[in-house]
């Protein structure tokens, strides 16, 4: 990614005329690849989202979509490969080796760079997860190619190069970045930024197996333990269908009860804007936005959130946004579908009550008859 959006970024726009001059070597690079992130056979959903996006890019380029699956030999890893086909992969590069059981930078970097050097993709996408970011930086440096981190949009240009758009300057602007003269063109994309494609039952397709030449003795870093997060602490914000969030407009941590009560009434996850986390009202895993979670719910209800750009980029994928704010000029109304200009402390209880009435079994039966 273009690093210091110092004066360089706007000035560099002048280089926009620079044409891709691919060397003959790089012209051999074809197809769109997705790194399939899996642990113990469970594929991170972001990989499927990227397969969906890869399909769109590949169709424009007239090439194939491939998934790269790395893991310990066995059923779990093969399952991950099988799933990749169901989400649109034409080919899967499969690298099974005991040293790949848990993610570690050394063996995964070697596996990925070897496979890329052997089969030469023109585009390589990874999820911007902790794993994906750890791996992408090493792979891109080893291959000495360009990497655009945390993209929000991907497109293929008329000259067939990949335009990767991402927020810049702390999220106040977007920029589109190209890797003109190197291959593969690499990008990481955060979970939930791209839509999940439908899963279609498909038989296992073409698998190309890759052997990793690496013995455990040659790997210096050892995994001593893995401490899974306690589920009770974990918010499922990114994948929730309904999210209720509050911002500084709520005025106090006590008032956040109103948000939580509405959320629990409709079985929603609750979240917040960044200053709420900075004040210590809620924990960081509840933050929504550019430096928090990206969400894509069917319904997003937010109260007392101004709608700063860093917050908006995290919620624009919502199917419907309901915004409650006392200021009729708050930027959140620019992206809201339904707006209420009123005090959140009054609106939230009224809305909670209305949902409760509407969803109570008694009333539902009445409505149905």
């Amino acid at each position: 990614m273009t690093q210091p959006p110092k004066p360089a970024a706007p000035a560099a726009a002048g280089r926009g005329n620079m044409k891709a001059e691919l060397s003959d070597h790089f012209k051999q690079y074809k197809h769109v690849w997705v790194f399939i992130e899996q642990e113990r056979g469970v594929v991170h959903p972001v990989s499927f989202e990227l397969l969906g996006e890869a399909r769109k890019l590949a169709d424009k380029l007239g090439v194939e979509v491939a998934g790269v699956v790395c893991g310990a030999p066995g059923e779990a890893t093969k399952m991950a490969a099988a799933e990749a086909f169901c989400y649109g992969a034409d080919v899967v590069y499969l690298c099974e080796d005991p040293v790949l059981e848990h993610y570690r930078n050394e063996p995964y970097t070697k596996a990925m760079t070897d496979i890329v050097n052997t089969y030469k993709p023109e585009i390589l996408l990874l999820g911007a997860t902790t794993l994906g970011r750890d791996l992408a930086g090493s792979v891109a440096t080893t291959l000495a190619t360009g990497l655009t981190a945390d993209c929000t949009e991907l497109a293929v240009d008329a000259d067939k190069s990949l335009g990767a758009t991402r927020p810049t300057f702390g999220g106040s602007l977007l920029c589109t970045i190209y890797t003109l003269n190197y291959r593969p063109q690499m990008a990481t994309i955060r979970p939930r930024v791209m839509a999940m494609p439908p899963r279609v039952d498909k038989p296992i397709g073409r698998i190309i197996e890759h052997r990793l030449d690496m013995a455990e003795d040659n790997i210096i870093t050892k995994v001593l333990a893995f401490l899974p997060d306690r589920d009770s602490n974990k918010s499922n914000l990114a994948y929730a269908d309904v999210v209720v969030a509050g911002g500084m407009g709520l005025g106090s941590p006590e008032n956040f009860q109103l948000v939580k009560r509405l959320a629990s009434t409709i079985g929603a996850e609750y979240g917040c804007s960044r200053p709420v986390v900075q004040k210590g009202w809620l924990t960081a895993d509840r933050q929504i936005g550019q430096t928090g979670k990206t969400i894509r719910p069917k319904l997003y209800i937010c109260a007392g959130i101004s709608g700063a750009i860093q917050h908006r980029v995290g919620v624009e994928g919502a199917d419907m946004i309901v915004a409650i704010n006392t200021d009729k000029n708050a930027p959140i109304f620019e992206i809201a579908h339904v707006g209420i200009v009123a005090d959140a402390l009054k609106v939230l209880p009224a809305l909670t009550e209305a949902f409760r009435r509407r969803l109570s079994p008694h009333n539902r039966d009445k409505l149905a008859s």
Partner: protein
Amino acid sequence: MHIVVCIKQVPDSAQIRVHPVTNTIMRQGVPTIINPYDLFALEEALRLRDKFGGEVTVLTMGPPMAEDSLRRALTYGADRAVLLTDRFFAGSDTLATSFALATAIARISEVYGKPEIVFTGKQTIDGDTAQVGPGIAKRLDLLQLTYVSKIGKLDLDGGSIEVERRAEGGVQVLKTRLPVLITMLEGTNDMRRGSMKDALRAARAEVVKWGAKDAGIEDMTKCGLRGSPTVVKRVFAPGGRTDKAEFITFTDKTPIEFGDELVEAIFKRQPAVEDDLIKHAHEFAAY
């Protein structure tokens, strides 16, 4: 022991404004700060030094004014500051940045001793890529530990280190060999205030200034714009949606009327949500 911490001077993005007409960044008067994520790395390095003895060298690549941030780091207690500054570095992307920093760290090793640990922050608030740390590690052939939340056993004689690192769905406990590159997770410690003695020392201390040549960089084609495979073609402001919000008034109704109208409006637009909520209604909230 010797620890190198990479810090970056960044504009305080909370105070950046975009010109409403030209869509360009208005930089005038925007104060600069040490990238907040780097303070966690610096504090962790200072703690290790306090415990094990040795020196902390802070390194930054940037314009001459980036010296301010280095001096600040000295007031916190860093022992030495190196400023890597050269017009050849302008326009560096992550690959070119990590090349320059890695070469400078190799030079620091020669002049001031080989570091056991190189620290970076998790990410910057302006570049925001989290890629420079891994890039430096790869170039220096250091083992890399990213998103470290806790440093456990450090055995300088045996040359090993144990850390906890944030992974998807849990925490990995890793053991590896020194030297390593660690990118430190935020919220892991609180930056100290720095002593009076350090403040006085920082005011007088000499910041080591290196151009590309001084840092041992020979291949200029790997620096700045030329050494950057990525090219920024377009910078623009995000657009809003074109259809406008439907507004529902609150004050002219009873809370019950208002609530019902709002729920109706939601379900009318999102019938699927109504189905979902009804299906799952028994799973939550006691009615």
